[in-house]
């Protein structure tokens, strides 16, 4: 696929090692090309690769602004460009420039003027895994809105640039994930998995949803409560992670609308034939979302939605009360759990809460929800791919299963257990020794309990919780 032609890497690593080692993953014959830190804008070197092609290499470290403006004027002499720009600036100042440049790079790829675009970032808090994920998402977004056909058979680049503008809000949301806004609570953009809400009404909702979807002639449907998936049809989960993520991000941008009907392409499953993404808001905090073909119309769907969901109104209200703990009210977590993130890599779902003690209040209120979210996000970015691998990861370079981090005001614990990754934020003062010996049991028990909830497939809700 064309979008696999993006390769990215971390700039800091680049400075320390060499371009060649970055290309190792591509198994390309390499000639060493060391890059000392602090380069000025220049065409640095020629690299001779296996197929005896000359790849021009452009590296820019110090002056990202000039870089981006100069990139447009680069004379393509080889088969590939290595473009090195600072993702840090990209997020802050250069977002628009980046968006302007993307179609240009894409057109080079399509016209085979270049084979690959390499983007290196210098923000050291992001490891390769996360950067690649972000670029994948950005390129998928273009297919999501315009369809593959439109992008591949591009005739007029200016026209395409104009058309691509519709992607900006979603790309913005993706890039915003690098420095999230206050109201973002979900982790989907980071983990690539669907954020779920766990409620005891799930099986009833699934029953209604399946009947409803069948009656309107689709197999893809989900019910979302507080922006998190509370129930979905079996086929909904067969969609690719990136498609589920894009739908979730798109819907989060449209949360003030009562109903929407947006033509989209599924980048993996259906990149050439559009679907209609339809959503009707049921209550202020819950909505039902479908992927349909040409019929039924949005107005007809409204009638059907009312017919099927009216009786579930009380249940919806009860499910809404799970928020913000995102687990049933009768489950109380250990008081020391300030917030958590549980990722089920097999089912591709994640369960998280920034305020897990919604009824009894938080004993350690010196951390705001936003702060807790930032701590967890940074923790995730720091450890995943560098210290531990996700359970289903192909890369087996890190075999540690547990990470502890202690700071002045809080402690963090990460645990890999079967197909789960569990991150928990604790208050400070819990001694490391305590965490490792006495507390490890309770950590495990907390995790066990949460993992069984997170599976969203367990028929009974575990009652035994820690303290």
């Amino acid at each position, binding site marked *: 696929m064309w979008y696999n032609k993006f390769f990215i890497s971390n700039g800091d690593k680049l400075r320390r090692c060499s371009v060649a080692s970055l290309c190792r993953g591509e198994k390309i014959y390499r000639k060493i090309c060391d890059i000392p830190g602090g380069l000025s804008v220049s065409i640095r070197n020629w690299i001779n690769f296996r197929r005896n092609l000359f790849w021009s290499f452009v590296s820019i470290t110090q002056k990202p602004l000039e870089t981006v403006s100069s990139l447009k004027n680069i004379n393509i002499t080889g088969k590939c460009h290595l473009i090195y720009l600072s993702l840090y600036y990209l997020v802050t100042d250069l977002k628009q420039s980046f968006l302007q440049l993307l179609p240009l790079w894409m057109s080079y790829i399509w016209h085979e003027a270049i084979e690959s675009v390499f983007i290196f970032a210098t923000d050291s808090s992001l490891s390769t895994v996360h950067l690649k994920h972000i670029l994948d998402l950005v390129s998928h977004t273009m297919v999501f809105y315009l369809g593959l056909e439109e992008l591949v058979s591009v005739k007029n680049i200016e026209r395409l640039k104009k058309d691509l503008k519709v992607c900006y809000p979603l790309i913005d949301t993706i890039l915003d994930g690098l420095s999230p806004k206050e109201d973002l609570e979900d982790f989907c953009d980071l983990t690539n998995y669907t954020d779920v809400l766990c409620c005891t009404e799930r099986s009833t909702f699934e029953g209604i949803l399946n009947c409803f979807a069948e009656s309107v002639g689709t197999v893809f449907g989900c019910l979302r409560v507080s922006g998190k998936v509370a129930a979905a049809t079996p086929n909904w989960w067969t969609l690719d992670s990136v498609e589920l993520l894009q739908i979730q991000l798109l819907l989060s941008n449209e949360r003030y609308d*009562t*109903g929407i009907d*947006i033509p989209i392409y599924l980048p993996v499953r259906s990149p050439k034939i559009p679907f209609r993404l339809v959503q*009707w808001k049921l209550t*202020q905090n819950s909505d039902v979302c479908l992927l349909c073909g*040409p019929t039924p*119309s949005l107005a007809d769907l409204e009638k059907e939605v009312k017919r099927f969901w009216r009786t579930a109104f009380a249940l919806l209200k009860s499910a809404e009360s799970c928020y913000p703990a995102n687990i049933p009210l009768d489950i109380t977590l250990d008081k020391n759990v300030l917030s958590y993130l549980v990722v089920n890599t097999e089912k591709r779902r994640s369960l998280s809460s920034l305020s897990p003690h919604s009824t009894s209040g938080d004993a350690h209120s010196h951390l705001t929800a936003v702060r807790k979210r930032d701590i967890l996000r940074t923790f995730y970015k720091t450890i995943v791919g560098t210290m531990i691998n996700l359970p289903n990861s192909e890369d087996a370079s890190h075999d540690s299963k547990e990470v502890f981090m202690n700071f002045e005001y809080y402690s963090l614990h990460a645990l890999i257990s079967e197909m789960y990754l569990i991150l928990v934020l604790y208050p400070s003062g819990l001694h490391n020794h305590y965490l490792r010996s006495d507390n490890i049991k309770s950590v495990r028990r907390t995790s066990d309990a949460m993992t069984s909830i997170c599976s969203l497939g367990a028929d009974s809700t575990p009652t035994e919780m820690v303290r």
Partner: protein
Amino acid sequence: MESTTTTSLKHVDPDWYKTVEGERIVQQLYHPINTKVRKHFGILEHPNVTPGTPEIMFKIGVLGKAGSGKTKTISVLSGKPAVFPGYIETIGIHVKNIYWPAQIQAKTCLFKLQFWESGESCSKRYNYISTACMEKTDAVAIVINRADRTSLDYADSKLDSLSRLNSTVVLFVMDTEHDVQVHDQELSQYARRRRLPFFHLPPHTLDIKYFAPFYNSLCDFVYSSQHKVMSDTL
């Protein structure tokens, strides 16, 4: 400046929202804790009113030249926070339910205005979009942006086809602070010639003294032209 918003209303009591009962119901439109935030109701619920209050539903299709501010109009009317800065074309259909309580002939009722909006170029690409937006509408609103003369030309071109469909048409006028291209006099002349009512969008999204007259006159006009029966009771 004269517009229909200042003329007398046929059915709706213009000052009812200031009464105790009116205030109580209007408050239902806001978030209970943060009174600066409007509630965004789902289709299974409605503001808490006395049982038996009739609900009058209007489907209003929103038209306008690409980039004239259709999405912004809906944002302003629904009290939605600021949207994406700069112009971004709307994709697909966006429906927004807005409730407004009013008193007609000494009887309290709840208007449910359902605005249907879609992006111009997206509608051209996918045929079903404009059909869905314009099907069975009670009124069609055309957005006139005073900073863009061509939005009047667009209205002209649409009016001919709309008159064939016997639609009730209103103009939503979006004011601008600088670079006014459509002046007051021209606007009122145009409206008189075309026999269309025009409504200036409230300048403030949350202050009731601005948007109450807007909703009252809009509901009054559509109600009079449609002669809707107050049948559905809540």
